């Protein structure tokens, strides 16, 4: 799908504040967001910091987003368990899924997390959806309904090539 279509779908659902750390999964998709005048983006230094920044949106009545690579999932485990899941503060995590399928896909540093990524979210009971070329609306609607109902973060897992 086209990057503009992706961000339009998020903006159309009220998401216009993001923080994060870039991932090559998003390449041009990331730049479309950074250059979008309707999205406020804070380039964070770590994924946990991005989640802290984006979680503040909840207090102003909105929903904040984090864009990140799955290698940063470890960095958000403590904020998830002792902040977002504890206080029940929602956010949308848009996670680039490097190393999907495990070796020999992608670079060695992504192999283990590439396999374990969904298991981390399952373990933490954080809902997630896997973005496919043809399920943008249904994946977002289902995920955001879950996020709002439970008032906790949810993750959209994005493989390379799904958004261009």
């Amino acid at each position, binding site marked *: 799908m086209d990057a503009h279509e992706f961000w339009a779908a998020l903006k159309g659902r009220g998401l216009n504040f993001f923080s994060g750390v870039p991932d090559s999964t998003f390449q041009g998709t990331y730049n479309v967001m950074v250059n979008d005048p309707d999205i406020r983006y804070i380039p964070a230094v770590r994924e946990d*910091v991005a989640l802290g920044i984006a979680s503040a949106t909840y207090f102003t009545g909105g929903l904040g987003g984090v864009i990140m690579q799955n290698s940063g999932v470890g960095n958000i485990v403590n904020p998830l368990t002792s902040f977002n899941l504890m206080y029940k503060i929602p956010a949308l995590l848009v996670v680039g899924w490097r190393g999907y399928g495990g070796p020999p896909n992608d670079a060695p540093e992504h192999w283990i997390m590439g396999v374990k990524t969904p298991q981390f979210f399952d373990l933490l009971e954080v809902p997630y959806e896997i973005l496919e070329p043809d399920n943008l609306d249904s994946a977002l609607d289902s995920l955001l309904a879950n996020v709002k109902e439970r008032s906790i973060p949810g993750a959209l897992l994005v493989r390379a090539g799904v958004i261009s």
Partner: protein
Amino acid sequence: MIARYQAIEQVLSHVEDGDLLVSTTGMISRELFTLDDRPGNFYMIGSMGLASAMGLGLAIQAPHKRVFVLEGDGSAMMSLGTLPLIASEAPPNLVHIILDNEAYESTGGHVSISSKFDLAQTASAAGYPWARRVEDIEALESALVKAKNGGKLGLILIKCGIAPIEGIPRVSHTPEEIRDRFKSAVQS
């Protein structure tokens, strides 16, 4: 040397009703809770190092509010990269306060490395337009006045002593109560 409890009390004397205060995990939140349990206090009772990130997010998204971040040297050092990030955004309504007792006091007074360097100089080097180190109550008072009225992002490094308060209570509100009353305070 200032006792941390006394420093927090001094900070609170400059906090107005509508102001927001994000405090870090451990004794700092417990002392704040004991001194003045305001709805505009967000006690970040977990997630060490995250208070400054949330304070930044709030200051940007609630620009009509003054936001105080109250953290220790341990949490500031845990998230040191947040200093240049805050400085690069430079929200003028954010006052960042580091209570530096050169120790992880909440876990039992274990020595930290903040005696080896100056976090106010670090903040300046990171791009804070204004950062001051204070070591007594008079200097703290003057720094607080300056931070509040300076119209720009500021950081105050308060060198504190280690003075645990016997029997200080934990924050008694549930996390969701802390969240909900803080949300109302943000939106009021």
